[in-house]
């Protein structure tokens, strides 16, 4: 019931065997290393092994090349450097450097092609501006008494009028552009200022003709040259991109594996940063599962030639022990729910094995339908084969779907039908007709579930708060419920006890709760009632799914009377309707069952919040 038992180990040895120790610890993957804080025990932190700098440089190079080449996918790393296709670090570095240089050449080629293309684009625009105006390349240079303007205005006609108001000694070329007009204005130098003002009034914005200034020849010829150049660059760019793709395909596996390998090597090389060191020795502290302690000692001694000392101690009160859940194989999938919520603390009961029973029970109770259960079951099996990533979720829902088939037989339902081929399904309870009974059963299930929570809470508190507090804080709630139940039954005259017996027990229980939990305790009492009522959802959510299924079936049954077209429509209605209802039902059953655990059940005993056990050598992120 408790998480895996841990021991706190301290490994002490001379620095000479530090590297061997790190290697062995990494291989063992059994020790959750506690980072040493500088100054603790008057010891400094260690400095990384020499090659750490080289390794991290290499890792950065590999990662940057990977991102440029768009490396993707997954590849299991096995047998170290040989898997990557090299013998040692030096060779790997050389290979990475060659690849990096190749990629960089291509990248810089692509970059300069891009820049050139951008420049050509500007040139092209300026040339076509001239072409639209019908001007030559030399139109703007070599004047002594003329001022020239080139640009765009909103309205060329207005501009001409305002220019005429100043002088008639000007020449204006216009062309229609996308937004407004392109213009070129030549005006005598003495009128330059006034002309500029007139232009400004007409929303003039200048077009710089920087790129075409030094060109000679005709505009169309220049444009053609630009187009030719552009095409050539485009081809260059494409071939560069193609060779990047080729490189990416060729080096994909190498980069994937090298990245993993170097991260691992780097983790090992930087491990001393987590250790405490003195002049000649190093100290590693960490947590190890008790049952792996023997193997750890043996392997470390073997690797270092007995030059190492391993000390193991039980966890102290207040230690932040990392938690590794330990459940039998059949309950293991349900650890998923704990990871989703919070890991139980080291000295707390791990509710996984309870969820293994109650989660499928609740799920089945809500989605109790033979048809839906079977469809879900096979759908999940198929999904698990297709998408391995979904396995953690699927492994939880498969037992739940089996339970839903079982409850389908108890309720006698298949796709909402209560009879199959004219024979009524045998059943214990008809959900659609015995609504009150269904709700009462739901709340009774809740009563058991909540009290199980209180009992677990009692055992949790017993461990660190003592018998009285544990009893008063947790079991009193059970007695409060019993007391109230007795009192109500005696008032109703169902049992021959005076009402004050039950009432007295309830009052006593409330007093105990107040003593254990202060005034927060009694405030929770109405909450207990709403917790209990909350279990009515077990019946209610299921009921809504039944009613929806019945409605779909009735609709389809009507349609079957309408000839061939009606029958086809009926089949469509059945298929679509039941698909939607199943999807809703699955989502609802899952979330509501989960919520009953997280909100109603866990709050009675569970605190959680432990850090997960991450042994040195397993991936941290």
């Amino acid at each position, binding site marked *: 019931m408790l998480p895996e038992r841990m021991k706190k180990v301290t490994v002490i040895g001379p620095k000479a065997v530090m590297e061997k120790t790190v290697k062995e610890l990494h291989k063992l993957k059994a020790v959750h290393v506690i980072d040493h804080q500088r100054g603790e025990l008057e010891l400094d932190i260690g400095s990384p092994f020499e090659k750490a700098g080289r390794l991290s440089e290499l890792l950065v190079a590999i990662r940057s090349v990977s991102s440029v080449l768009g490396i993707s996918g997954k590849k299991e790393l096995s047998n170290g450097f040989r898997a990557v296709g090299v013998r040692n670090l030096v060779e790997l570095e050389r290979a990475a450097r060659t690849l990096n240089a190749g990629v960089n050449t291509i990248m810089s080629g692509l970059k300069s092609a891009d820049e050139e293309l951008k420049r050509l684009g500007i040139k092209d625009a300026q040339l076509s501006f001239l072409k639209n105006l019908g001007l030559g390349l030399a139109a703007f240079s070599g004047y002594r008494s003329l001022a020239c303007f080139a640009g765009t205005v909103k309205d060329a006609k207005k501009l001409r009028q305002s220019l005429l108001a100043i002088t008639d000694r000007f020449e204006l070329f216009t062309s229609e552009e996308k937004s407004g007009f392109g213009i070129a204005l030549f005006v005598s130098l003495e009128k330059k200022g006034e002309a500029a003002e007139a232009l400004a009034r007409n929303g003039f914005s200048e077009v710089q003709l920087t790129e075409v200034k030094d060109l000679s020849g005709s505009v169309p010829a220049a444009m053609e040259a630009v187009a030719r150049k552009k095409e050539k660059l485009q081809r260059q760019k494409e071939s560069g991109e193609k060779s990047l793709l080729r490189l990416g395909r060729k080096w994909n596996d190498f980069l994937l594996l090298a990245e993993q390998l170097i991260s691992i090597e780097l983790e090992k090389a930087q491990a001393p940063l987590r250790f405490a060191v003195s002049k000649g020795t190093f100290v590693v502290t960490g947590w190890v599962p008790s049952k792996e302690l023997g193997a750890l000692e043996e392997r470390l001694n073997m690797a270092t030639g007995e030059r190492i000392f391993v000390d193991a101690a039980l966890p102290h009160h207040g230690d932040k022990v990392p938690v590794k859940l330990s459940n039998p194989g059949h309950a293991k999938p349900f650890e998923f729910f704990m990871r*989703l*919520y919070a890991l139980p603390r080291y000295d707390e009961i791990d509710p996984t094995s309870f969820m293994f029973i109650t989660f499928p029970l609740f799920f089945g109770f809500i989605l109790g339908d033979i048809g839906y259960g079977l469809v879900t079951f096979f759908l999940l099996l198929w999904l698990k084969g297709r998408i391995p990533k979904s396995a953690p979720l699927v492994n939880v829902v498969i037992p739940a779907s089996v339970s839903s088939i079982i409850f389908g037989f108890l309720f006698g339902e298949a796709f909402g039908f209560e009879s199959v081929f004219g024979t009524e399904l045998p059943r214990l309870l008809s959900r659609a007709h015995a609504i*009150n009974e269904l709700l009462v059963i739901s709340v009774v299930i809740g009563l058991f579930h909540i009290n199980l929570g209180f009992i677990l809470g009692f055992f949790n508190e017993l461990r660190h708060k003592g018998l009285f507090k544990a009893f008063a804080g947790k079991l009193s709630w059970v007695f409060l419920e019993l007391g109230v139940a007795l009192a109500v039954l005696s008032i109703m005259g169902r049992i021959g006890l005076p009402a004050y017996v039950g009432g007295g027990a309830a009052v006593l229980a409330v007093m105990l709760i107040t003593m254990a939990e202060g005034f927060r305790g009694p405030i929770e009492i109405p909450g207990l009632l*709403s917790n209990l009522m909350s279990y009515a959802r077990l019946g*209610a959510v299921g009921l809504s799914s039944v009613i929806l299924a019945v409605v779909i079936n009735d609709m389809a049954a009507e349609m079957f009377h309408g000839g061939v077209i009606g029958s086809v429509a009926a089949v469509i209605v059945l298929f679509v309707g039941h698909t939607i209802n199943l999807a809703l039902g699955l989502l609802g059953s899952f979330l509501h069952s989960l*919520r009953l655990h*997280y909100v109603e059940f866990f*709050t009675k005993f569970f605190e959680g919040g432990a850090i997960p056990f991450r042994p040195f050598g397993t991936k941290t992120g």
Partner: protein
Amino acid sequence: MAEAGIVAIGAALAIGISAMAAAIAEKEIGSAAVGAMAEKEETFGKGLILTVIPETLVIFGLVVAILILNLAKG
């Protein structure tokens, strides 16, 4: 028959209004919870709990609706 209709309306109001109330409450909490989750993924469990707390309102509505319907029968 008219009386049955009024009873049905009463039951519908009981569950309908409580469902709306729960929805409004969950909207506020849910958006805050998703915001917290975006910052810190571990808050999923707490966020879920806080988000579904108002759901109890609907359950109360349902219980009252069933009581009303039973009242009409008896």
